[in-house]
C-alpha cells in the first residue's frame, strides 16, 4: 500500500469542542465522516455530522456472548471500545457490485461500475483496528493480484485514531502486539484527557495530511504534564487487559489438526458465522451472478461469506467441511496459524469481537489455551 504515515509535528491539545471543527474541516475537504454512534443499543460506525452525536458518557460491558451499554461516570466521548461493526464494512463493503454486462447481439459487453464514493474519514479508530486494516491491505494486494476498489478506498481514507482508555473484558490486544496504544498507521491520533479541570484531547499527527489538518484547527501546545497524562491512559489500558492469547499459537495449532478439542468446541458452536461477520480481518466472500427479468442485463455482486457455512466448501459431490468441527478448525487455524503462511502476519488483532458476539460465548483465547494446556508443561 502506498500510503506512508509519518510526521514530525509535535503533539497538540484540542478542546472537546474543537472536535466539531475537526469534523467540519474533514467534511469541508470532501470526506464522508464516519464515527461511533449509538444505534440499536450498540456502538456502531455510521456517518457523523456532529460531535454531539458521539456516544458521550457511555461505556460498554462485554463478555463472552454479552454486550451491554451502560451510563458511565464521566462525560467521556470514547470510554467504550469496539462494537459489532468494524471499518471493514466501509473499506470492503458487505455487498458490492463488481460489474454489469449488457447483451449485444449474441454476445455481451461488460461495463465497470462508476465508483464515485467520496473518500472516508474515520473518527475513533482503535489501534487493533488499524492493525486489522493493515492485515486486509495484505489480503487485497497479494503481490499477484490487487483489488483496485479496495486500494482506492483505503488510500483515500483519513484515519483519526483514538487510544483506548478502558479495554473490555474481551480485549487481548496486548498479547497480539496490536494495542492498546496506536503507534502508526493514522493521520491523527487522539487521547482523551478528562478530569475535573478539563476535557481535552492530546492529538498527534501521524502523517503530513494529518499535520496539515491540525494547523487549521484551534489548538494549544502540549506540556510535559499532558504527555505524561496521555501516557498514563495508555499504560492503564494496557494493565487492565484481562485476556491473553496463548503464546506461539501458530505453531501450536499446526501440531493439533486432530485435537479432541475441535470436537468439543463443535458441541457448543452453532456454526452461525457471527464471529466471521464481526471480525475486522475476515475477508472471505462469495459472488452472486444475477440477471434482470428480460435477460438483457447481468450483474456480478460480491458479498461477505463465511467459512462456517456448508456451501462455502461445496464442490461437485458434496461439501468438503461437512462437520462443525472442521469449520471451526478451519476458521481458528486460519486466523491464528495459516494466516502467517499466507500473509506473514496473524489474522487476529485481539479485538475480542468474536468472543462478545458469539451467541454461546465461545472464547478463541480459551480454545487456544485448552489446546496448549493439553500439551502439559508450562
Amino acid at each position, binding site marked *: 500500500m502506498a500510503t506512508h504515515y509519518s510526521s514530525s509535528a509535535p503533539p497538540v491539545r484540542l478542546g472537546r469542542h474543537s472536535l466539531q471543527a475537526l469534523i467540519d474541516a474533514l467534511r469541508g475537504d470532501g470526506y464522508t465522516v464516519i464515527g461511533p454512534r449509538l444505534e440499536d443499543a450498540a456502538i456502531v460506525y455510521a456517518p457523523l455530522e456532529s460531535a454531539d452525536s458521539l456516544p458521550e458518557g457511555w461505556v460498554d460491558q462485554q463478555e463472552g456472548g454479552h454486550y451491554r451499554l451502560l451510563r458511565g461516570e464521566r462525560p467521556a466521548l470514547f470510554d467504550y471500545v469496539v462494537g459489532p461493526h468494524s471499518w471493514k464494512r466501509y473499506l470492503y463493503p458487505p455487498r458490492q457490485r*463488481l*460489474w454489469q*454486462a449488457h*447483451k449485444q447481439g*449474441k*454476445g*455481451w*459487453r*461488460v461495463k*465497470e461500475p462508476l465508483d464515485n464514493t467520496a473518500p472516508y474519514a474515520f473518527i475513533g479508530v482503535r489501534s487493533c483496528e488499524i492493525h486489522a486494516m493493515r492485515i486486509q491491505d495484505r*489480503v*487485497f494486494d*497479494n*503481490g*499477484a*493480484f*490487487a*483489488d*483496485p476498489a479496495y486500494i482506492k478506498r483505503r488510500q483515500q481514507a483519513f484515519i483519526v485514531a483514538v487510544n483506548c482508555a478502558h479495554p473490555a473484558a474481551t480485549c487481548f490486544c496486548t498479547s497480539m502486539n496490536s494495542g492498546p496504544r496506536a503507534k502508526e498507521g493514522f493521520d491523527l491520533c487522539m487521547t482523551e484527557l478528562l478530569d475535573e479541570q478539563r476535557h481535552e484531547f492530546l492529538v498527534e499527527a501521524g502523517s503530513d495530511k494529518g499535520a496539515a489538518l491540525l494547523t487549521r484547527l484551534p489548538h494549544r501546545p502540549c506540556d510535559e504534564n499532558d504527555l505524561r497524562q496521555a501516557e498514563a491512559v495508555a499504560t492503564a489500558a494496557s494493565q487492565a487487559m484481562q485476556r491473553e492469547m496463548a503464546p506461539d499459537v501458530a505453531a501450536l495449532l499446526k501440531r493439533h*489438526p*486432530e485435537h479432541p478439542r475441535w470436537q468439543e468446541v463443535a458441541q457448543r458452536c452453532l456454526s452461525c458465522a457471527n464471529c466471521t461477520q464481526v471480525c475486522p480481518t475476515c*475477508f*472471505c*466472500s*462469495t*459472488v452472486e*451472478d*444475477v*440477471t434482470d427479468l428480460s*435477460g438483457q442485463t*447481468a450483474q*456480478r455482486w*460480491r458479498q461477505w*461469506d463465511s*467459512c462456517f457455512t456448508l456451501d*462455502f*466448501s*461445496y*464442490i*461437485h*459431490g458434496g461439501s*468438503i*467441511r*461437512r*462437520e462443525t*468441527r*472442521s469449520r471451526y478448525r*478451519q476458521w481458528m487455524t*486460519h486466523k491464528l496459524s*495459516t494466516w502467517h*503462511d*499466507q500473509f506473514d502476519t496473524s489474522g487476529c488483532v485481539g479485538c475480542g469481537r468474536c468472543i462478545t458476539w458469539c451467541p454461546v460465548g465461545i472464547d478463541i483465547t480459551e480454545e487456544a489455551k485448552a489446546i496448549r494446556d493439553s500439551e502439559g508443561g508450562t
Partner: protein
Amino acid sequence: MTHNADPMRPIPYRIHRVRSELADTFTLDLVPEDGVHSLNFAPGQFNMVYLFGGGEVPISISGDPARTAPLVHTIRAVGPVTRAMKALGRGDTVGIRGPFGTTWPVIEAEGSDVVIVAGGVGLAPLRPAIYHILANREKYGDVRLYYGARTPDDILFLSELREWRGRFDMIVEVTVDSARGYWAGRVGVVTHLLERGRYDPEETVALVCGPEIMMRFAIKTLNQRGVDNDQIYVSMERNMKCAIGFCGHCQFGPYFVCKDGPVFRFDQIASLFSLREL
C-alpha cells in the same frame, strides 16, 4: 504485478465449436470476441469460465499450450452452471478470466521418465501436458499414460487415446471400473495399472489427476513402488469464487488452491492430504 486492470472482469469469448465428448461432457473451442485478446497458458492452468447471468466455474484448459487459439475447455455438466453451459452452441458467448494457477512440471520433468495417471474427466487437465511432452518427445525418457474411467462409455478423448496407443514412443493403458460384454480391455481401478507398470521408480516423475479418492490410492501405490512424494504432482479441486486469492473458498491448509495450486508437488501437501475435511 497485476496483469488485468480488474482481475474480476471477464473477457468475452465466442464459442467457435462444441464437441460432445461423453453423455455429460463436452468441449468448447473459444475465440476472443474482440479477435485480438490472446491467452498464453501453461499445462495445468485453469480459467474461470462465466455464463452470462448464470455464474462462473473454474475449468482447466484442455487444449494444446503451443497453440494460442482456439482456447479449449473440456467441461463436465455436474452443476447448474456447467449444465447450462452444455446447452450453449456455436456463436454463443462465455466470459473468460485467467489463466490462473500453477502448472504441471513439464520443464522440471525433462530428462526423466513420465508416468501420467488420470481418472475420469481428470484426463482433461493433463491433456496439455501430454501435448507438450509429445511435441518435445526427445526431451523425456519413457512416457506412460495410465487412464481409468468408470465404464467404456466414460472414456474421454477416445480417438486421441487410440492414436496415442498406436505410437511407438508412449505406453498407454486404459482400464474401466466395470464393463459389459464387448469390452476386451482391462477391468479394475487405475491403481492396478500402477502396481504392474514397468516404470523405473527412481527415474519417474508422476502427474496425477482425478477424484481425490483415486489420487489417494494412486499415490499410495506409487509410494509402495518407490516413487517418492517429491516426484509426484497432483492437481487439487476446491470451491473457487475469485481465483486470485481474495475469496478464501479454496483454502487448503496454508495454501490457496487457486494461486498456490491447483498443481502441487505432493510433498508440499502430503501432511494435509491425509486430514479429513480440511
